[in-house]
């Protein structure tokens, strides 16, 4: 453990989400020399989104490794490194290329602890940018977090602001089990926020209540939080809107912090879930099912899901017809407020 912080780094930074990722990686590498990075183009190039910018220069090629162009290699190698005592943080360049890693995640990373009854563990982090809205080529815009959330033994974490990117990534790195860390690339450079480089992790398995309200619980995660915040602030700030909305950022999409959700719905009695991923078997379905199983007597209206369609993500000329807008969220909220059992 190297605790000789570069004190300059402890200053407050006004940075965007991808810079917060970079800051967290740098902090983790300073604090723990077992942390290593591997992936495609992450070295001299600093990653295609610059998430690892400057890290190879600072920490050398034995800790920031450009791999051959082979995602199975990246995942399988990370499994081996983690078992052998390193803390590998692997980058998959886009979520569209992540599927070659699934066998290693499902068959090995997620169950190494279980299949050896704790003899071996697999504390790796697999990072990937995900989601649409940046006019990217085919295979560069999908949101398939639910695939990973369905794998017992994995944690799936999605930040929605620079500060949460910093704190949750540190938490993922500190976690003794594998974490899939999905970065909403539409937010990578959307806004700058203040981030304090204090090395403090945020809690995993915990929702973040971004706005408190009493009439409706709005649940989302990742890039959609941007539109949700705008809509909620709109409703909550207008005195005659007559609406007070609670906004919950799910953050860890598996395992889900149902305690926070339950407390909120017991208070509001209404729930809207927003996600960019396809509707069927999305995380929203799991939340809605949980509400149906446990909270029906508190509900004043049916749950509504505002999600992507069960289609292939349209290429970018028609991507706008798939993406969730503020108007979609507003309309959904109004529908639920107007309905009752």
């Amino acid at each position, binding site marked *: 453990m190297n605790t000789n912080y570069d004190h300059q780094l402890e200053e407050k930074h006004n940075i965007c989400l991808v810079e917060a990722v970079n800051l967290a990686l740098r902090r983790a590498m300073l604090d723990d020399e077992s942390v290593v990075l591997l992936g495609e183009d992450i070295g001299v190039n600093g990653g295609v989104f610059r998430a690892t910018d400057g890290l190879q220069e600072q920490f050398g090629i034995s800790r920031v490794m450009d791999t051959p162009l082979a995602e*199975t*290699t990246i995942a*399988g190698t990370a499994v*081996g490194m983690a078992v052998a005592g390193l803390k*590998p943080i692997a980058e998959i360049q886009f979520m569209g290329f992540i599927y070659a890693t699934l066998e290693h995640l499902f068959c090995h990373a997620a169950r190494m602890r*279980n299949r050896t009854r704790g003899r071996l563990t697999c504390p790796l982090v697999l990072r990937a940018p995900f989601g649409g809205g940046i006019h990217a080529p085919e295979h560069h815009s999908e949101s398939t977090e639910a695939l990973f959330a369905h794998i017992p033994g994995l944690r799936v974490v999605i930040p929605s602001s620079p500060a949460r990117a910093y704190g949750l990534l540190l938490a993922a790195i500190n976690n003794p*089990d594998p974490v899939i860390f999905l970065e909403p690339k539409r937010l990578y450079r959307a806004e700058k926020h203040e981030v304090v480089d204090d090395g403090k992790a945020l809690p*995993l398995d915990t929702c973040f209540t971004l706005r408190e309200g009493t009439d409706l619980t709005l649940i989302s995660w990742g890039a959609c939080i941007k539109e949700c915040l705008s809509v909620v602030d709109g409703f909550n700030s207008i005195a005659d809107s007559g609406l007070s909305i609670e906004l919950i950022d799910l953050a860890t999409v598996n395992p889900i912090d149902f*305690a926070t959700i339950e407390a909120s719905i017991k208070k509001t009695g209404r729930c809207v879930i927003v996600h960019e991923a396809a509707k069927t078997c999305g995380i929203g379905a799991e939340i809605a099912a949980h509400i149906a199983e446990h909270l029906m007597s508190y509900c004043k209206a049916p749950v509504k899901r505002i999600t992507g369609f069960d289609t292939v993500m349209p290429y970018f000329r028609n991507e706008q017809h798939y993406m969730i807008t503020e108007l979609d969220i507003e309309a959904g909220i109004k529908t639920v407020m107007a309905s009752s059992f």
Partner: protein
Amino acid sequence: MLHNLSPHLLTNVSTPLQYLSANGDVVIEGNSVKELPEFARDKELMVQAYRWMSLTRAFDQKAVALQRTGIIGTYPSSLGQEAISVACGMALERDDVFVPYYRDHGGYLVRGHSMEHLFLYWGGDERGSAYKPNEGSGFDMPICVPIATQASHAVGIASALKIQQKKQAVLCTLGDGASSKGDFLEALNLAGSWQLPVVFVINNNQWAISVPRHIQSGAPTLAQKGSAAGIPSIQVDGNDFIAMYEVLNEALERARKRKGPMLVEAISYRLSDHTTADDASRYRPQEEVDEAWSKEPSKRFQHYIHQQGFWDEKAEVCWQDDCQTQLVKAVAAYQSFEAEQPEAMFDHLYENWPTCMDDQVIACGEKYLRNHSG
């Protein structure tokens, strides 16, 4: 000592390295008997190797019998491939890392993993991979069922050892079928590119369940797949312990000295069915199996140590008795393990327990009571 390491030799079918002919006589080269490696004159080492090989075979027979009587589940026999696995186990040093596939019972036994734990694993109990090996690095990898995925882990471990500046080597085994998979080819690629301290051993037993070697690949040898990755590669008679042990020792020593990876294609034959759930008579002729029996490794090696005066009938009888005694004890130890509690399925999923799963643990207990009351 190894003369066949030059990769270009493998662009054509080479002759696998061999010291002992099928009947156990030392092979003749030209007009004279081939010079054996020095260790082949070491009585203690040779007897030890033979004991491991015959214990592995006895274990195998017992495991098949236990499956037939419902005491363990489906089991993949290693019949006829004992020399490869035992040579792997013996060539590894204590702190090296063994990354085997699922047919390496011999290697596991040599590494100090107990027979009762192997029975536990094949008996459907996760604790089979929870042993603390008596010897070994402590992180020998568990039995790997998804084909060739262990090759990716092996390069990851080798990379970690290199980064940590440790002087150990990694040994990864796989079957001929696994040599067709992307994981293996990607692992070779990374091992060659990063010059990792890893040795790959293909147990080419000619059959991947029902698919014969010639359908797996159009390459004349499987060893030459290493050449494409810039890795010195060699074919060895996998039924010849002396050849296997020599090559693995040198390959591992090379890896420990940070001279890069190696690939060994060990030519053998799967004398058994693929597993106890398979019936190989559906797809391969008995004549082929009969022919392969004439080249099997155990009899061959037994002949050699008899000829050298290291072993005799009396020693054989004593040792076989000893094997049976060990097996009876191991089976009793295995059967003394009560099944884990139902809720144990939750015990090792996460170090940090997600409380949202509390109700599932309770439901599991209730389910047990409901289905087992009275």
